């Protein structure tokens, strides 16, 4: 990733912003994950109890219906079962636990009195009534278990997602961003060093050029100095001569 980013100050600032955001998000998500796990532990305890009751209710109900079958015959039990008029219904409401919407299941018409069941009292025996009652209890337990297990499943999914997000931030995104930041910083430092070095070189060259120029000038000046005395004597002699001649002429005249 680091090689894909352009080493510019703008990118560095962007990466720094993203790092800040990611670190903040990572912290928040970690807290959410821990909170969810704590809530989950509470629900798990409840689920264990509900499961225990459910198993016991099921055993009890099975015992009762087996007894009814043995005493009344399978056909009589099935006949009674087919005659039921009232049917249990469930309505779900939702509850929010740390952002996870879990259902709260309300049931109606699960437990019924003898005359509500719909099969005739005369045609069936008490064994069937007992079996029906046991299964009604079992249904109540099942509804409770369904509520708790749905909550558990939903929370587990959320915990898994949150955990994955936390891990992705911790082990993928943040290291990549840090790497990118370091890469850009190093590149920028290197560029700075190169720039300083280049400036130094340029300065050196310039100084060298100036020095050479100065030396050349000095040398030229020296050359001129060396040539100058001859010229001066020649030059000065002439005016003198002119002067002398000039002066000489009037004086001569």
């Amino acid at each position, binding site marked *: 990733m680091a090689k894909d980013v352009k080493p510019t100050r703008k990118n560095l600032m962007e990466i720094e912003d993203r790092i800040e955001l990611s670190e903040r998000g990572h912290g928040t998500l970690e807290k959410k994950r821990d909170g969810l796990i704590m809530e989950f532990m509470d629900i798990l305890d409840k689920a264990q109890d509900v499961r225990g009751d459910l198993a016991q209710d099921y055993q009890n109900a099975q015992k009762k219906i087996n007894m009814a079958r043995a005493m009344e015959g399978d056909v009589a039990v*099935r006949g009674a079962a087919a005659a039921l008029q009232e049917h249990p219904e469930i309505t779900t409401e939702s509850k929010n636990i740390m952002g996870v919407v879990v259902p709260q299941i309300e049931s109606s018409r699960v437990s019924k009195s003898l005359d509500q069941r719909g099969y005739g009292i005369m045609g069936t025996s008490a064994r069937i009534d007992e079996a029906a009652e046991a299964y009604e209890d079992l249904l109540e337990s099942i509804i409770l278990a369904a509520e708790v297990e749905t909550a558990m499943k939903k929370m587990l999914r959320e915990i898994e997602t949150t955990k994955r997000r936390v891990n992705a931030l911790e082990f993928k995104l943040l290291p990549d961003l840090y790497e990118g930041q370091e890469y850009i910083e190093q590149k920028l430092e290197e560029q700075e060093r190169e720039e300083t070095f280049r400036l130094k070189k340029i300065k050196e060259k310039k100084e060298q050029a100036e020095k050479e120029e100065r030396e050349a000038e000095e040398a030229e000046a020296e050359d001129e100095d060396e040539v100058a005395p001859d010229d001066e004597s020649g030059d000065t002699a002439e005016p003198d001569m002119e002067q002398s001649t000039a002066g000489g002429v009037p004086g001569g005249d």
Partner: protein
Amino acid sequence: MSQEIAVVGSPEFTTGFRLAGVRRFENVPDDEKDDRLDDAATAVLEDEGVGIVVMHDDDLEHLSRNVRQEVETSVEPVVVTIGSGTGGGGLREQIKRAIGIDLMDEDEQE
């Protein structure tokens, strides 16, 4: 919205629930479970009027891999399995995966 409870399994398993008033049921005789249980489970899972599906633990063995996974992870409707007592076969795996520890195992040992 009011929903119903559905039962899927052998006629012996469903009769008791019918006695308690459950009217949505799928009877699959034991010798036909390998062929028909997948379809029966899918049918109740896809039924929007069903809020809770009750199945026997041992019946999960007869389901194909995809349907079984769907049954174990389904939230709407939620599938409650009863029978051998361990309960939530898929749930245990899910807990292990999400939390990282086998919490149910730890609780059983206590």
